[in-house]
């Protein structure tokens, strides 16, 4: 069998078996011929050593799927709509992430102003500095809680998209990789760090909130110190 005869026969057999990526496969065998010819082998000899085209083509059967091609269109339409709904969900979740991140930053700025005794454009109502310092630290703790929540939600979103892409690929393509978990993935070290930050933030926030409240009450000499200093007027 000459090179062209062999490749034609191979192409026909692959087509008969409904193997995907036929051109790619045939070009690999074409290259094999080219390399062997360069080494001084004859076409007949190379073809004989490759093995009969029918046998070679049959070995590709398991890789390309004969059955999936028919069901393909239906599955693809379904997947397409799933993808639309999914992306809507991701957009909403991304917006939530951005809002959460912005809140963390805003709260951190407020905390910084309270601690630093800055009152930009008189937005922060009057209170004595010792109370402001305590309240500021408490607010920074809250900002840190929001920060951790943002990081966690963002990792969640990322992993969700990753898992979904993997799932779509597995449904359409012939590559069946193991499905990914939907849960956010952190390295053990990062997970420990995040957990510690969150724990301490909650403690700082809770304890300082109570202390700041009591201190402000004592300074104002009234239970409702916000009335005393006319915060909401």
């Amino acid at each position: 069998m000459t090179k062209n005869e062999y490749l034609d026969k191979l192409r026909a057999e692959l087509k008969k078996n409904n193997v995907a990526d036929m051109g790619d496969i045939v070009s690999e065998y074409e290259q094999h011929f080219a390399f062997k010819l360069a080494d001084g082998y004859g076409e007949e000899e190379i073809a004989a050593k490759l093995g009969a085209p029918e046998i070679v083509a049959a070995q590709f059967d398991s890789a390309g799927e004969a059955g999936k091609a028919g069901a393909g269109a239906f599955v693809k339409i379904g997947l397409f709509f799933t993808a639309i709904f999914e992306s809507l969900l991701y957009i909403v979740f991304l917006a939530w992430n951005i809002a959460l991140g912005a809140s963390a930053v805003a709260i951190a700025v407020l905390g910084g102003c309270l601690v630093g005794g800055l009152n930009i454009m008189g937005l922060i109502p009057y209170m004595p500095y010792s109370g402001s310092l305590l309240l500021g630290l408490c607010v920074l703790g809250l900002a840190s809680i929001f920060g951790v929540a943002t990081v966690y939600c963002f990792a969640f979103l990322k992993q969700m998209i990753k898992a979904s892409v993997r799932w779509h690929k597995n449904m359409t393509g012939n590559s069946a990789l193991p499905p990914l978990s939907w849960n956010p993935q952190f390295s053990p070290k990062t997970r420990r760090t995040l957990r510690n930050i969150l724990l301490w933030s909650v403690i700082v926030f809770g304890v300082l909130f109570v202390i700041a409240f009591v201190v402000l009450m004592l300074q104002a000499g009234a239970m409702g110190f916000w009335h005393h200093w006319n915060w909401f007027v």
Partner: protein
Amino acid sequence: MNTQYKKGVLELCVLAMLKCQDRYGYEIAENLAKHIDIADGTVYPILRKLKSDGLVTTYLSEESGGPPRKYYSLTELGRSTYEADRSDYLEFAKTVEMLLKEKKDDKE
């Protein structure tokens, strides 16, 4: 030797060949055929299966004069699969060797 039996082991051999360096298809085919008695055409279906299983990826590389060669390279998944399958196989081969030896001793 039984071809069907060889096929599973061939995948492992291909992974082993790619462990240290990326190689192009012909190189792998030649190397395998040198050591194991198989038809040259058998290697490409194996490479394709490894690729669709996500164990290897391919890229084209321009060589001096001549068509671009398709190189195969192990993925992370391929690397871990290789390590696991390799120790499985060696363990298995050790057991088989031991069993076969015992049989010989019994006959003698």
